[in-house]
């Protein structure tokens, strides 16, 4: 029994030494900070859909270095060697990401011409659409004014129903037509007007001339009172000239007692008087 004790002690000592040695093996690091950092960078590059082409080659290099680092770590190789692979893996993963950014901006530069063309195309389409819209609006407004297109431009005829016989002041019922004309002139500020007064052949020439001038002025005053600038309007009295109806009949004379508002084309100066043919 006495001899047994030291033997047991020796065995215990050996066992302790073995377990210590095993413990030393067990604590061999299975993770490495730099390697994990590199793994995160590689995963990030892997999941970036923009990584392609040359950037993809860098990603492959990074993946290979990471795998090598993992293998070295598993084999219990020196930490410095694992760190080295991790370093290379992370740098190449970052290069892959930068490469993807490079590809993106290069593409944006290469597409510049087609992007410019697209911008101009859209602008042209917008312009055409606006011009169309404008022309539709103009047509609608002119139709509303019952304007007719003549060689001299667009003419709105205000019949004698606007005036009492032999008088130049406007009837209250003429308001609606003049309101429409005002709205039109406000919507098209670049269009000037020439207002021409006419009479029938009844009465002396001087009287008719004066009456036709006063009627034209009356329409002008109505427009200016509603805010149309006076310098956009030119008035003219034409007496019994340029009849549109037969002065021998009552209906014809009624047609001849009128004021015509000639709406000039955009930008045509008010003073550029258009002579009647």
């Amino acid at each position, binding site marked *: 029994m006495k001899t047994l004790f030291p033997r047991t002690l020796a065995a215990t000592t050996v066992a302790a030494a073995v377990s210590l040695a095993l413990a030393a093996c067990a604590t061999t690091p299975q993770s490495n900070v730099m390697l994990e950092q590199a793994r995160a960078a590689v995963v990030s590059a892997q999941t970036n859909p923009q990584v392609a082409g040359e950037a993809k080659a860098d990603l492959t290099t990074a993946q290979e270095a990471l795998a090598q680092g993992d293998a070295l770590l598993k084999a219990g190789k020196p930490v410095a060697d694992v760190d080295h692979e991790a370093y290379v893996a992370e*740098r190449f993963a970052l290069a892959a990401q930068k490469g993807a*950014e490079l590809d993106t901006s290069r593409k944006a530069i290469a597409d510049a011409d087609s992007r410019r063309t697209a911008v101009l195309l859209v602008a042209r389409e917008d*312009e055409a659409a606006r011009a169309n819209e404008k022309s539709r609006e103009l047509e609608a407004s002119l139709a509303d004014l019952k304007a007719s297109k003549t060689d001299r431009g667009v003419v709105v005829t205000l019949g004698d129903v606007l005036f009492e016989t032999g008088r130049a002041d406007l009837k209250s019922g003429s308001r609606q037509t003049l309101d429409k004309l005002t709205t039109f002139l406000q919507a098209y500020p670049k269009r000037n007007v020439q207002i021409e007064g006419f009479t029938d052949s009844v009465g002396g020439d001087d009287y008719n001339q004066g009456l036709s001038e006063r009627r034209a002025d009356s329409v002008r005053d109505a427009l200016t009172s509603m805010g149309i600038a006076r310098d956009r309007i030119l008035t003219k009295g034409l007496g019994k000239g340029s009849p549109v109806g037969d002065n021998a009949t009552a209906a014809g004379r009624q047609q001849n007692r009128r004021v015509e508002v000639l709406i000039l084309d955009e930008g045509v100066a008010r003073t550029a008087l258009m002579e009647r043919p």
Partner: protein
Amino acid sequence: MKCIQAASTALIGSVVLLSGCASTPLAPSTEMTRAKSAIDQADHAGAREYATDSLNSSVQKMAQGQAAAAKGEKAQSEQLFEESYADAHLAQISAESAKSAKDAAGVDRGIATLQNEASHATTP
């Protein structure tokens, strides 16, 4: 005589010992040449301005690698040259990317101006 013999034996022995310690500088390796050329390319790409840290790190690793090579530490120097190369490569791509992003931003501004002008021109 015996004394001289003993002394020379000791001397030879110490020379042998010393030469054992002394290193043989390594010839320039492929890794070093590759890393050096990558540093040149990064520099050319504007890394001094756009990727200073990576370029500095690359140059530093190159110097460390050369020091290790001078001491005959092959494995150590090769690792350092590889890391120098990885840094230089990253510096080059980073610089190219930064410059290209700058150019792209200029192009974007130009297109935005064009868009602005175009929409102003068509506004009634």
